[in-house]
């Protein structure tokens, strides 16, 4: 008994440390799982000839939905890149979400569009559709443009889903750059479906800042010059190559990034489409679809592709990045709170017991614990109750472990997709890993705390996202 009391006292006394150890252990376990999964994925796909899929008559049809709001700078080039994706039977649905700039005008001019007599079936509620446009030019027959009253990204995606007639739907950000073979790679898990219905597939997002982009395609990959963007490269590599890969295997994937995801359209519609009530509509949809499947007792899975499929521009300014992270935190908190029924509920299987629980403690609460830990530490420091020798030891432990984990992520990238060809880039990435815990991590904690505060006071806004656009504006195609 005394032994157990000692253990309890030890755990309480070292709560933050214990939490740190659990988080680190979870990271190690996830990394190991990811390594195994990555190896299997690479081996399995080393023989695949994706070109054979392009012409296969049995391949499912796909609708790529790209919502656009004030994207005048880059929309024409981005649509052109989407139309050039390698796939046989697909359509591109661009949803102009009541842009205040000349986004629609530019698309109409560039692609020779005219309004068609479209009967719009509002299967999922969305804001009023002002018109549906198609091109007079048969070369652009794959393109459909919807003009609607502004309602946000989720609302635009819902409008696109309503127009789509295809089996699979791909939702992307209009300013993301998809790899030309992204659809071929993403469709594969749906084709490999065996017994379990595949309801969604996510892919790896890569950071396009500082990359050379031409004609809506990434021509040369460079590591971002800006520190904030560079540190996000590390963050994304860790999250996508080490985290999500493992979660897919553990059936605990709760998020398919809004920047790129492929879904089964009917399941999406039956789940009610994207929620316009949350700022984390991408995560909320996946959780809702999973709930639907689990409640209907349909065997299902959410899969994940470790290939770099989509390039996106990340914020380089602290203010904008702060807003984005605030929004992510609110999105996570809103989703987890809304679906709290899943928490540790065996009815939802691994998704409820493991995936949700992990997100609850480590994605939502961990930054809060860290923040309150910092406050507690500061009070103790002021009162002179800090054992500085032990503090330095603990700091050394946390720091070296965190850095080594980041270097593991760099190795994963090196061994798998090897996107940074210059040796200098790899050294800079490793250098960034050493700086990150001091200069970046505290900021993410603060943003997460602010996001939680905004969640508790019920703030709903998205915040303004400024983008520079990848290319010079083009007026013709």
């Amino acid at each position, binding site marked *: 008994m005394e032994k157990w009391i000692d253990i309890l006292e030890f755990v309480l*006394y070292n709560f933050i440390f214990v939490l740190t150890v659990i988080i680190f252990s979870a990271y190690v376990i996830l990394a190991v799982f990811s390594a195994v999964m990555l190896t299997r994925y690479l*081996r*399995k796909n*080393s*023989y695949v000839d994706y070109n*054979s*899929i392009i012409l*296969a*008559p*049995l*391949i*499912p049809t796909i609708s790529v939905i790209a919502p656009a709001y004030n994207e005048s700078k880059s929309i024409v080039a981005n649509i052109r890149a989407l139309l050039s994706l390698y796939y046989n039977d697909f359509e591109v649905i661009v949803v102009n979400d009541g842009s205040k700039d000349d986004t629609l005008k530019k698309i109409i001019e560039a692609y020779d569009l*005219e309004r*068609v*007599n*479209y*009967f719009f*079936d509002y299967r999922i509620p969305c804001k009023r559709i002002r018109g*549906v446009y*198609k*091109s*007079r030019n048969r070369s652009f*027959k794959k393109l459909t443009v919807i003009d609607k009253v502004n309602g946000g990204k989720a609302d635009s995606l819902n409008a696109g889903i309503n127009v789509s007639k295809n089996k699979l739907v791909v939702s992307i950000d209009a300013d993301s750059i998809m790899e030309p073979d992204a659809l071929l790679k993403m469709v*594969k898990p*749906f*084709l*490999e*479906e*065996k*017994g379990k219905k595949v309801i969604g597939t996510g892919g790896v997002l890569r950071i396009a800042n500082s990359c050379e982009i031409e004609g809506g395609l990434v021509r040369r990959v460079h590591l971002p010059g800006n520190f904030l963007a560079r540190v996000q490269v590390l963050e994304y590599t860790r999250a996508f190559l080490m985290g999500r890969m493992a979660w897919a295997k553990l059936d605990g994937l709760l998020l398919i990034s809004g920047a790129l995801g492929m879904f089964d359209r*009917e399941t999406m519609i039956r789940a009610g489409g994207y929620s316009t009530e949350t700022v984390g509509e991408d995560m909320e949809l996946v959780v809702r679809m999973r709930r639907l499947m689990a409640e209907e007792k349909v065997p299902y899975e959410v899969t994940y592709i470790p290939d770099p499929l989509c390039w996106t521009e990340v914020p380089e300014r602290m203010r904008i990045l702060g807003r984005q992270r605030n929004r992510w935190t609110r999105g996570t908190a809103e989703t987890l709170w809304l679906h709290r029924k899943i928490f540790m509920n065996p009815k939802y299987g691994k998704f409820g017991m493991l995936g949700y629980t992990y997100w609850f403690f480590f994605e939502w609460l961990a930054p809060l614990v860290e923040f309150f830990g910092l406050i507690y530490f500061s009070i*103790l420091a002021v009162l*002179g*109750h*800090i*054992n500085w*020798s*032990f503090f330095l*030891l*603990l700091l*050394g*432990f946390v720091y*070296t*472990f965190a*850095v*080594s984990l980041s*270097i*593991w992520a*760099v*190795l994963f990238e*090196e*061994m798998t997709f*090897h996107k940074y060809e210059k*040796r200098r880039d*790899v050294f800079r990435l*490793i250098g960034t890993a050493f700086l990150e815990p001091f200069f970046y991590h505290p900021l993410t904690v603060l943003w997460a705390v602010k996001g939680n505060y905004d969640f508790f006071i019920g703030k709903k806004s998205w915040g303004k996202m400024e983008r520079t656009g990848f290319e010079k504006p083009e007026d013709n195609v």
Partner: protein
Amino acid sequence: MKKQAGAILFLILLQGFSLPEREQPVYDTLLTSGHPVYLIQISSRREKLPAEFVARHFNLDLPVFTEFRDGYYRYYTGPFPGLAEAGTFADSLGLDDAFAVVFLKGTRVTRSGRPIPGMKRGTWIFPPDSAAPAQDTVISVVKEEPAVADTAAAETVLSRPETEGNRLRRFIAERDYGRSTVFVLILYGVIIYSILTMLVLLVVILINRNRNERLAKMEENLKEKYQRVLMNYLFDQELPEGVPLRLQKIASNSFKRKILIDQMIDLSVNLRGEAAEKLRDLYIRTGLHHDSIKKARSRRWHIKVKGFRELAFMDIRDANDEIIRCLHSRNDILRMEAQLALVKLGDEHPYEFLDYLKMPFSLWEQMTVHEMLIHHELTPPPFSRWLRSSNTSIVIFSLKMIAIFKQEEAYPLIIELLDHPDPEVRKTAIRVLGDVKYREAILPLKRMYKQEPYENCLEIVKAMGKMPDQMVLKFLQLVIDREDDVQLQIEAAKAIQRMGPVGEETLGKMMQSDYKNYQIIIKHVLDKRIF
């Protein structure tokens, strides 16, 4: 109330039992003094030793105090007036292990006299004949016989040189971490491990880069060289007998042979007839098929897969037994590759696996088998053979293949599947009947419409549209009239429109109806810009 009184009495009794027999002010100083007490830690051992032995062993005139903490007995001597004096005395002892420590009311503190946060209090052990500490002390004090009472045994313990582990523990003790040694050691361990990992990973990354760059360069050169030799061999009029020998020479190791095989496979994809035969002949004469067979018999699944693929491409049947064995593998990928290889290499029953496959036959597998049939111009089997399979995915696959290869003799059998218990099979059967325009299906399709789930109703309407007929036209008009679902109405209108002039005329008439939706739906359907 009574209980409290009892507790107080009990405490008094306890204290009464431990009344001092002989005054020992030095213990009081150590355990109760509000001022720092400077001592020297002489040794720390797992064994409990009498203080007098320790004092004798180290030739100490001063008293020896024993503290038990974290599984170790620590032996101190002192007290000294200050840290400097304690330090000087520690040096004079000439012991590596000795170092000065500071106590406040029996608890170890920092050298500046401040408490060490997290420092656990130890238990002080008194010699049996010593006095108990002052009553106000709050620390644990016990008085008991030392475990190692034998002088010789105590000497042995004290004479034992300190192990590396002990040195490490002393290193930790000197740094006042205030946590258990094991805990601190784990932290140190993780730090050292992390640093080592960083260094190793850095080296691995660099080596991997260099290796990959080197291999990529080598591969490029080899490919160029092999391609030249192969093209000359395949398309030059004369047949250079020396080519196999030359290739054997330049493809001297497994890496080079791997490149050569890949190159041959790449070439074989686009070769037919004589050229393909010539390449196969070269592949065998160069002895590369031994590599492929070896791969097919490897214990690692991904190497096996490579072997199967190479053998299938080159039409080598020497490892068919291994391929057949893998048809039952639990590894999905290996099983699929074995199926594919057998479709290409099987002598008598290449599609036999479809007879007994219990697991779902995924769309991916279906596509690869179809691609194999097309690419290698293989004769498709009569797929009607599997229309009664208990595996629904095989039935669905067979239905699709019947439509693609237009196996007309199977069409009547498809009608039977409209009663299949699985809605997905019925859906595919409906679609196939529409695709092959099998008019005999019109009546059964009409009959089943009302009982079918929504998705299948949509398929029936679409299938009807592919079979223009007066009877169908009326049915489709009824769908538009009676159904509330817009998708069904649109599909029915599309189906009518696909019937040509008769259909368009019908739609024109319907446009004149007062019902508002009709006009919007028909306008939508007639708009040729919407595909």
